[in-house]
């Protein structure tokens, strides 16, 4: 085989290497470094550089180089390179300013009407000049490099837009949550005895949902429902909410309107989460159908409703009310257990106990229930009670 034919085969093989590197799954800078090695290995160049045009800064950024100093490359002005042609190699003889930089050949890189960068080479190990064949090959290589740089540029533009959108979304999300929390604060402010109740119900509900394996989006939804479940109380008079004496039947009926009022308010908001309105509306329903406002029974109550119902009752029991002192955690758990099947769901109760047990044992990195409970509670007694309930409910669940 003649040397000339071997050289042609080597060049074809180099183009194949370049294609393989450019389309590889490697990181962009690795791709460019490999492509640069292909170029210097093809021409045995001892100096070279691939430059990327930063449109925003209107300057050339060095992606990879060999032999050139940063000072050499800083002398290249994009506006001087743009008129030199598209992906066509320019020799030093045609463009004297290249001599200043120390480049022997330069290719301005373009994709359609976009100037994308430049490729520079200088010197050959064999000390020969860049031949016409070399320049033709370099033109093909330059086109491929330009396309790869353009893809990177487009990707960076998209990444920037995505980042900006994510930032805006997070900002909106913070505002959204802030508004909801302000609502909750307004509700809780009406009733001196239920301060932070909405916050705690949101925390407890999301902790239970997380333990149940809900996804982050749905957990956020129940967190919001927890915050808003009593928003209807804004329409109930302060005197009634803070009344110490037992309610008359009329007053009780008035108080009970709050869940429907909560629903009426919540339904006007276009939530990105499903079932928030339903969870807010039915947080006083019971499994046995004796709840309100719709006396729904077992199968018609979603897990979300069952979670909010239990979290709401647990917090109500462990908080002081105008008509009674707060219960200790053990008593509250025992009371909740008495109401299983009729009012509360076994499965949700089991999960609440598991979460609380894990929090006491330090197994959860960010406890959400324990920090809100009475600081003087005897955790060993609570833990022992929880273990008993967990064992009993687990057995029941396995049997079912």
């Amino acid at each position, binding site marked *: 085989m003649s040397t000339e034919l071997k*050289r042609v085969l080597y060049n074809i*093989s180099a183009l194949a290497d370049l294609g393989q*590197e450019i389309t590889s799954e490697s990181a962009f800078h690795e791709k460019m470094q*490999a492509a640069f*090695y*292909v170029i210097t*290995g093809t021409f*045995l160049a001892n100096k070279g550089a691939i430059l990327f045009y930063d449109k925003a800064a209107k300057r050339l950024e060095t992606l990879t180089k060999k032999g050139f100093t940063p000072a050499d490359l800083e002398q290249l002005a994009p506006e001087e390179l743009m008129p030199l042609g598209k992906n066509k190699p320019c020799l030093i003889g045609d463009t004297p300013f290249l001599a200043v930089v120390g480049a022997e050949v330069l290719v301005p890189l373009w994709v359609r009407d976009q100037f994308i960068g430049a490729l520079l080479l200088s010197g050959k*190990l064999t000390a020969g000049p860049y031949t016409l064949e070399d320049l033709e090959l370099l033109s093909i290589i330059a086109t491929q490099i330009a396309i790869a740089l353009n893809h990177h540029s487009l990707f960076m533009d998209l990444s920037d837009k995505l980042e900006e959108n994510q930032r805006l979304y997070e900002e909106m999300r913070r505002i959204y949550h802030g508004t909801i929390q302000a609502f909750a604060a307004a509700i809780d402010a009406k009733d001196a005895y239920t301060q932070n109740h909405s916050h705690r119900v949101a925390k407890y509900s999301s902790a239970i949902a997380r333990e149940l394996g809900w996804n982050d989006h749905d957990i956020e939804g129940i967190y919001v429902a927890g915050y808003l479940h009593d928003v209807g109380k804004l329409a109930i008079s302060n005197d009634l909410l803070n009344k110490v004496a037992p309610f008359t039947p009329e007053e009780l009926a008035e108080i009970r309107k709050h869940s429907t009022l909560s629903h009426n308010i919540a339904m006007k908001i276009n939530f990105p989460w499903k079932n928030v309105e339903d969870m807010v509306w039915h947080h006083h329903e019971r499994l046995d159908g004796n709840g309100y406002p719709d006396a729904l029974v077992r199968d018609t109550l979603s897990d979300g409703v069952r979670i909010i119902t239990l979290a709401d009752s647990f917090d109500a029991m462990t908080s002081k009310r105008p008509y009674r002192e707060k219960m200790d955690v053990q008593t509250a758990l025992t009371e909740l257990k008495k109401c299983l099947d009729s009012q509360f769901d076994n499965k949700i109760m089991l999960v609440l106990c598991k979460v609380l047990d894990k929090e006491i044992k330090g197994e959860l990195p960010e406890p959400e229930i324990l920090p809100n409970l009475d600081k003087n509670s005897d955790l060993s007694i609570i833990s022992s009670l929880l273990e008993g309930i967990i064992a009993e409910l687990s057995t029941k669940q396995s049997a079912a």
Partner: protein
Amino acid sequence: MKPVQFSVTSKLVGDAAVIYPKGYLNNLSGEGLVNECGIYIGRGITKIVVNFSETDLINSIGISLLLQIMEDLRNIRGTICCTNMSKFLRDTFEMLGLIQHMIVFSVESDAIKYLKAGTT
């Protein structure tokens, strides 16, 4: 057949470093060869023998990396010897004109002898 992952080992023989590339010298993992030589050059070694007995193939990326080693040695007036080359490697180096910038031996021991003789 799964290609052999490129790797490099080396040893010092007298005042010469012998480098053993293993596998297809065709991607960025070949930078290990340049780095390995760079370590010896950094320690003041100016004689490097590259034993290609376990590298049959090389592409443009490998050539570029080898070129880098040759330039690094040239800058310190060093010597590069290549040994145990396959026919493909030898033909490629000849066709590109690289062979004039290295000293080629059939086997590693001949290169070591040559470098030792140059020292004394």
